[in-house]
């Protein structure tokens, strides 16, 4: 299930990254975001947000908001639900 307004925010930030970085709270006020979603944005909660948007938009958003890939990937992996017996990625690079 996609969160429309969160997705819309991520889509729009691609072309307005500097403005978003300059005043995140003001930018967020333009979107009908649920309170828990807004809080997750303010604390860069990758795992919470990942469950609500397309993964490419998630990546573009965090890149545009200034998070380095290394940190983004670390948070993504930390957010993955542990599955009993789940196999690790077959050939993890990068």
């Amino acid at each position, binding site marked *: 299930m996609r969160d429309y307004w969160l997705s819309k925010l991520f889509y729009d930030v691609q072309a307005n990254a500097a403005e978003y970085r300059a005043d995140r709270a003001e930018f967020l006020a333009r979107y009908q975001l649920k309170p828990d979603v807004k809080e997750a944005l303010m604390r860069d909660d990758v795992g919470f947000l*990942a469950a609500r948007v*397309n993964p*490419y938009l998630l990546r573009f958003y965090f890149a545009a908001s200034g998070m380095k890939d290394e940190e983004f990937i670390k948070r993504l992996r930390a957010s*993955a639900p542990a599955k009993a017996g789940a196999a690790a990625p077959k050939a993890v690079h990068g």
Partner: protein
Amino acid sequence: MAEIVEVMAASHGPLIQRDWHAVTPPHKQRLTAAFEALGARLNRAKPDVLVVVTPDHWINFFIDNLPAVCIGVGEEHDGPPEPFLKDFPWRPIPGHAGLANHLYQTALANEFEPSVSHRMKLDHGACIPIWRMNPNPLPRIVPIIVNTLEPPMPRVSRCLAWGKLIAKAVASYPERLRVAVLATGGLSHSIGEPTMGAIDEAFDRRCIAAFNDGREQPLVEFLEAEMDAAGNGSHECRNWIVAHGAAGSRGFALVDYVPVPEVYVGCGFAAWNLEGARRAA
């Protein structure tokens, strides 16, 4: 009458451009050589038009309007908006409205219902391979966007049928045109998922083997069954199967495969040997 003179496929990871400085010298050499080999083939084929089958990375479309397939029918298209592609040399990008509209009409006549765009933006998916291949001159571009980013996506069998439809449309176009087809994306990669950065070399090599074998049903079944587990970027193999269909499902030849962790992509490059395929048909 128009004819297909070249069919190719190439990976397109954005870091191939954005983080080129971080790519190791051996990988730079392999990637450069592969793009140049495809560029040389393209130049030898002297196409008037290049049909580019590519994803849209949330540039033209959003979840409020998300076509499964969209044809760019404009006389021209906009270049890539990504900042790291600001130096892309062709802006605007010339289109071929005649062939594009004929493709659209042929689609409707054959019970395919694509979306159309009269002014499309071409992002890194199309523009990195084109730029790196450095065609001289740049053919007119007919872009076909296939949704390979947001589920649900077109079935693999439908993508194969799209390739055959492209071949049919080109063959029935009344003007003499030389048409090349370029599929972009793949092979395995994972973006914005917990497996981001993973390259599934086993999938990639089985994928290449299935294309090399060429038989449609096993290839379709393999991709339908295996793409998802190989990372969300692997769904771009749908574009490769469009190319396979356009080539008549014969003649696949690997140019190179190199997993490049610096760009997160199992990079694949291929061309279909059309003359050999036509002789065998």
